[in-house]
């Protein structure tokens, strides 16, 4: 017999929800595309740093917008952070060790190595990242970026490069200032709640070269990552005011996440190198 006539299989109804493989694949593709986009913005920024158009005053304006306008915010946050850390640690340490004399030395070590750069960067990712994405995103949806392209000006050169330079410099400066605020706030808390005099509290014996290198590397890495990631989120905005909202949200989330991930790798590298 010849093959039976092909019976028409009832076609399965189109699945309403995508399968797991589809979800994972779509996520991976979107992630890879975003990573490639961020990488290309980073490379272009570095290229234009060397041979871009000079715009007098642009970097200074961005430094004011990123640095001066975040100063009060960061000082408030880091001041409270210093008080919280000393208060909670002191309270817990009292349970196991009677003498809190080394609290100050460990506190400044932890501040320099980890807390100051990372928390400052998380705060800057929120404030500066949201600002950059909102600003560039509004320019994209109102077609100002297209106008820049029409004038043969790359938006990375015109918009992201000044923010990049300003952010790298200002993250260092702001971390240093806000870190000092946190240290002083911690010192006052230690004096008030645990009767530790400033003479005992100020003890830099635990801060070594490794800590300073870790602080500087983290500040530069975070300062570079925030404008690149949130600038990319701003540049891919589409769809009116709703799109600007989305771009801002994804800028805050991605730049905070990139700070946490960079923190993990830089801390790990510093631990391996300096012990």
């Amino acid at each position, binding site marked *: 017999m010849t093959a039976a006539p092909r019976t028409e299989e009832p076609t399965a109804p189109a699945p309403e929800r995508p399968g797991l493989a589809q979800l994972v694949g779509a996520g991976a593709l979107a992630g890879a595309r975003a990573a490639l986009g961020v990488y290309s913005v980073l490379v272009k920024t570095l290229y234009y740093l060397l041979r871009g158009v000079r715009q007098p005053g642009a970097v200074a304006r961005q430094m004011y917008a990123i640095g001066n306008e975040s100063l009060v915010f960061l000082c408030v*946050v880091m001041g409270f952070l210093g008080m919280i850390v000393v208060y909670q640690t002191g309270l817990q340490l009292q349970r196991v060790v009677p003498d809190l004399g080394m609290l100050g030395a460990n506190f400044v070590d932890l501040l320099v190595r980890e807390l100051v750069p990372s928390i400052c960067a998380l705060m800057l990712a929120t404030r500066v990242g949201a600002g950059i994405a909102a600003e560039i*995103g509004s320019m994209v949806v109102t077609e100002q970026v297209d106008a820049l392209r029409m004038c043969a000006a790359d938006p990375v050169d015109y918009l992201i490069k000044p923010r990049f330079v300003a952010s790298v410099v200002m993250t260092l400066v702001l971390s240093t200032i806000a870190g000092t605020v946190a240290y002083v706030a911690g010192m006052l808390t230690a004096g008030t709640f645990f009767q530790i005099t400033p003479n005992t509290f100020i003890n830099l014996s635990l801060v070594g070269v490794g800590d300073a290198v870790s602080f500087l590397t983290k500040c530069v890495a975070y300062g570079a990552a925030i404008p690149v990631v949130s600038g990319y989120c701003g540049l891919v905005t589409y769809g009116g005011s709703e799109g600007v*909202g*989305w771009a801002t*949200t994804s800028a805050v989330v991605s730049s905070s996440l990139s700070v946490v991930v960079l923190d993990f790798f830089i*801390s790990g590298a510093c631990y391996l190198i300096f012990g």
Partner: protein
Amino acid sequence: MESVAHHLGSPFRVLGAAFLDLAHTVGGMGVLAGAIARRIVRLDWDGSELWRNLEKMGVRSLPIVVVTALFTGGIMVIQAAPIVQKYGAQALLGWGAGFSVLREIGPLLTALMLSGRIGANNTAELGTMMVTEQVDGLRALAIDPVSYLVTPRFLGIVVTLFLSTIFSDAVSLIGAAYGGWAILGVEPQVFFNGLTGGLLGLGDVMHGLIKAVVFGVMIGITSCQFGMSTTGGAPGVGRSVNAAVVVSAAGIFVVDYFVSFAIA
């Protein structure tokens, strides 16, 4: 003469404007909090909107919460490594990681990440509805925007913060346990013994969870207030998202201090 007076008056003008702005924001948040509290007491909110928001805020944020918590656990072990090795305090690693995660880092980092993700998103959504006059449309249909839009979002944020913090506490402790195993060679069993060895109790977990709820209230009120007071098109939406994330991030730290102090 006039210009001198102008310059002398300028700092006061700046200070006064900042103060008025602050008073306006805080007052608006207070009024909104009162309106939300009235709706909650009278059980007057939109149930399906609440479920939709819980899915959108809670379930969709899970990947970010998990990734942040895992890395945080790892970072903590790396930072504690020199102290642990110097004093040979392997047995105390679990205790140290436990108290810092449960009391501070778990709730704080979860709140910061979620303030970026759902707080900003919420402001953007409400702000877009304001500038495209959809909220006015609701009012014209005699639908109360506070019980239809704001209260479900507020409840969604508070519930999400509470549940995500439980999740993130667990994940970062697991991250710290296995990070400690990989980096310091501390067996996970030793880590968990330190964790459950009697120095930590239910009180520490509750301390963190109370904080999570307070942070949720803070983020919820801030993001709804800034969203509902948006004006001025697409740039206006960007501005209010920016302001909302800044105020809720600073608010989280300020509130954290006072809560730590109040329920030590």
